[in-house]
């Protein structure tokens, strides 16, 4: 899961302070492991350096200096690319996939397309494994089967999520 892309996508909804970003991240994805401030600021610094975000305004108050960040055009393109690029099918993908779907919903993009792209990628791998399995020996078949069953689980999850996209959108946006 890519934190920089996630923060970037969250910023796409409007300029925010680092603190607000952390709050929002925790609310959507931080169920079991909330972010450190350090992580947020480090990431934002990197994004700034790469020109994907810019400082929108600086507030001088009594406390530490507070910067408000906004996404740049390059940043939007980067989010776009990231979302449309399927993850390479690997084990325990779900948190990344979940994040992507939620962010697509939050940024008003086609979340179903994200899922479809992912399914295509999964299926392609499955196809390769199936071919290898039918041509190989039993050991090959058993190894491939293991991978195929995990891919199948992912695909099943993708399918279910597709079917529940409308409800998810409601919950995320509320």
């Amino acid at each position, binding site marked *: 899961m890519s934190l920089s892309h996630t923060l970037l996508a969250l910023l796409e909804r409007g300029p925010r302070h680092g603190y607000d970003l952390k709050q929002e991240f925790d609310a959507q994805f931080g169920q079991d492991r909330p972010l450190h401030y350090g992580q947020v600021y480090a990431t934002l610094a990197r994004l700034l350096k790469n020109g994907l975000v810019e400082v929108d305004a600086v507030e001088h108050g009594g406390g530490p200096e507070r910067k408000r960040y906004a996404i740049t055009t390059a940043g939007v393109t980067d989010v776009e690319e990231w979302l449309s690029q399927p993850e390479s099918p690997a084990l325990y993908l779900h948190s990344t996939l979940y994040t992507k779907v939620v962010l697509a919903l939050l940024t008003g993009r086609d979340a*179903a*397309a994200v899922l*479809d*792209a992912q*399914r*295509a990628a*999964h*299926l*392609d791998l*499955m*196809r*390769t*494994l*199936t071919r290898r399995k*039918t041509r190989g020996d039993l050991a090959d078949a058993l190894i491939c089967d293991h991978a*195929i069953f995990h*891919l*199948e689980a992912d*695909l*099943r999850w993708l*399918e279910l999520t*597709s*079917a529940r996209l409308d409800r998810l959108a409601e919950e995320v946006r509320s």
Partner: protein
Amino acid sequence: MTGDAPLLTARDLSKAYGTTRALDGVSLDVRAGEILAVMGPSGSGKSTLMHCLAGIVRPDSGELRYRDRDLIAASDAERSALRRGEFGFVFQFGQLVPELTCLENVALPLRMEGVRRKEAERRAAYWLERLDVADVAGKRPGQASGGQGQRVAIARALVTEPSVVFADEPTGALDSLNGEMVMRLLTECAEQSRTAVVLVTHEPSVAAYSHREIVVRDGRIRTSAGSAR
């Protein structure tokens, strides 16, 4: 994939049952020799699409051609003749005539085309052999196992050497091992005889035997993602 002209061309097919829009503007090509998986949740219109492509159901609107024949304008008799001669079918179950032996079941499409009984049964025996079910030739379908029955059904679909086989959830009633064997034999035979297969399934592991897949949802095709090959 080779660049020759598609066997089946569908443009903007729509079909409604009452208020249910089972198909809603589907466009699609099926090329010779390709194995195309039609995926999607149940009720999404996969079977309806297959029935339309095979000329079993006439779509409400759209274009549909097989080679250079217009399937929408064709009469029922013409479409039936096409199904007998050019297409093969495998369904989930209920397709074998229970009172005929497996051999007679496989010979059935040939006999419907007017092939003499002896010749039809000789060719049927060959296909039973290829699908590894020669041992049930003389038995009735009720005496064969589910996997054997489904392989008999595939033999029956292939016996006319069709250019397209339509398979609707062919492993739907089988366990995974039997399902795997059925799919392996189906795709092997199809590839060897360059028969196109339209494979309707909601199971990814079955769709994995295809060359490419389309996903149907609410009567529409979601993606036509380029295949890996």
